[in-house]
């Protein structure tokens, strides 16, 4: 097998195009690959469709930087802060430019990605009946259940097939075989549905480490096109077993992004003036060290021996 190890810069430049439908993190508030968010902004990608149930402040940052053409999601904001100011400005005032929203709920989006993952023509959902989400997003079609004689409306959701799904993972080998643990959100569905997968690995390990526990592999390595070795790629979001959340960073972003000028200054300081994620790690210094999980609470041993 051929190594898929590249730099984050190469991964974003080589595998993501303007207009792509992109999943940037799929476990809602954890393991969001903000390093990729920042690199997409630095490379000036445009008209991206951001697919995610919730991806904390990542979508808001990309919207403010003018990278997003549309949102296919259930929630855009700042989980600990509240509203997403860039999202509001784009939707209410068209700043920096207008944005299309394809409204979903977490469940209907999970189901749509599952339909993409498993090649389903559509997926019937009993949620969203009575919700105006079926009005603002006509991709949610209400139809009579064809197997029921009695009136039984169901919502048919179309499959979603992202062009690229990007994930932060605690460890991967150079071939894209990776472990992930903790809550999974829609990571599996997004990875299996996507045309290609990019991994940002906190640690690069020998293939034998991954092979020692095939149940922690959430999606197969053959879906992965590129692996970047990028510690704390999920910063400021948390990653189970590796990194705590930097709540202060989210709150600072929330305060400073209240107006456009504040956001642009924030963007210059934290993204545009940083050459790459290593520069951001250096800038954070001790602040990042303090977020590193140093305790040990190991999973009970699981044996895979065959003899």
């Amino acid at each position, binding site marked *: 097998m051929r190594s898929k190890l590249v730099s984050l810069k190469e991964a974003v430049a080589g595998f993501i195009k303007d207009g792509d439908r992109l999943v940037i993190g799929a*476990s*809602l*508030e*954890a393991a969001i690959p903000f390093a990729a968010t920042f690199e997409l902004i630095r490379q000036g990608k445009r008209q991206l469709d951001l697919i995610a*149930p*919730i991806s*904390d402040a990542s979508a808001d940052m990309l919207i403010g930087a003018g990278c997003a053409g549309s949102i296919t*999601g*259930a*929630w*855009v*904001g700042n*989980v*600990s802060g*509240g*509203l*997403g100011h860039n*999202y509001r400005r784009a*939707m*209410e005032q068209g700043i920096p430019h207008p944005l299309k929203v394809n*409204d*979903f*709920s*977490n*469940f*209907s989006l*999970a*189901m749509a990605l*599952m339909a993409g993952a498993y090649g389903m023509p559509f997926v019937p*959902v*009993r*949620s*969203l*009946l*009575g*919700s*105006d*989400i079926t*009005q*603002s997003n006509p991709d949610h079609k*209400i139809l009579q259940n064809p197997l029921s004689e009695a*009136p039984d*409306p*169901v919502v048919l959701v179309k499959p979603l097939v992202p062009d690229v799904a990007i994930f932060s993972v605690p460890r991967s080998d150079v071939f894209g075989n990776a472990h992930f643990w*903790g*809550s*999974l*959100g*829609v*990571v*599996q*569905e997004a990875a299996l549905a996507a045309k290609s997968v990019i991994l940002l690995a906190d640690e690069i390990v020998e293939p034998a480490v991954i092979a020692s526990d095939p149940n922690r592999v959430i999606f197969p390595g053959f879906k992965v096109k590129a692996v970047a070795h990028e510690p704390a790629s999920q910063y400021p*979001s*948390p990653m*189970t*077993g590796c990194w*705590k*959340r930097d709540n202060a960073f989210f709150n600072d972003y929330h305060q400073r992004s209240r107006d456009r000028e504040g956001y642009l200054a924030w963007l210059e300081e934290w993204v545009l003036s940083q050459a790459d994620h290593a520069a951001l790690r250096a800038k954070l210094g001790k602040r990042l060290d303090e977020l590193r*999980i140093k305790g040990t*609470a190991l999973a009970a041993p699981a044996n895979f021996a065959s003899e």
Partner: protein
Amino acid sequence: MSSGYSTQELMIIASAREIKDGEVVFVGMRLPITAFGVARLTHAPNAVGLFEVGIARFEPAKDMLYTMSDPPNQLNAAWCTGTMQVMGLLQGGQVDAGFIGGAEIDRFGNINTSYIGGHRQMKTKLPGSGGAADIAAMSKRLLAIMNHEPHRLVRRVGYITSPGGLDGGDSRRKAGLRWGGTGAVITDRAILKPHGEDGELHLFSIHPGHTADEVKKHTGWDLKDHPDQMQTPEPTPIEMDALHAIDRDGFWRS
């Protein structure tokens, strides 16, 4: 507020009382997760908490959570899985109750967290549903937590993100929702519960230090009295001890 507890602490304890022992509850963040912890430590030791990120927990997390994905919520969880699996239980009718918050709620319990003014003439863009629409549609009983102001408790929301009783009466069932609906709306002034044939929200319980008149003045429709109207009981020492055991840093005390 009355001495000994904050308004938010009272809301948490009032919410905890809505959780029955052995129930499977979608808890979500902030007040509800703390309410779940209080319930577990008092009258509901067998309740199970679900989080849409893909977590089930018995014991509440030991440390402060800013998001439900934070490491303390992963450590010693009862189940770490995906959103599909956990929300699938909801769709399968296996979840007894769910908590959600909201920016706007109307007299039938419909909640808007998407577009103030509606999606065609939007005045304010809110973050959206997240899992709220699903929890409202598919849990057996919906518990809403709101700040009680006339612009929040309105006659009719401009956009229904999360369905309550829709237009009242059997309109929820007619829309195809086979179970569920509003169980209680817990505010900083009172508890509202649906009553009567159309299931309009009525004033059920008035928090200590508040009056019926004041609550009604802060409600955007002509709020009627529930026939079983009561005063919200003060938090008991047992409840307060449970709350303090969970909220060790006093986050909700102010």
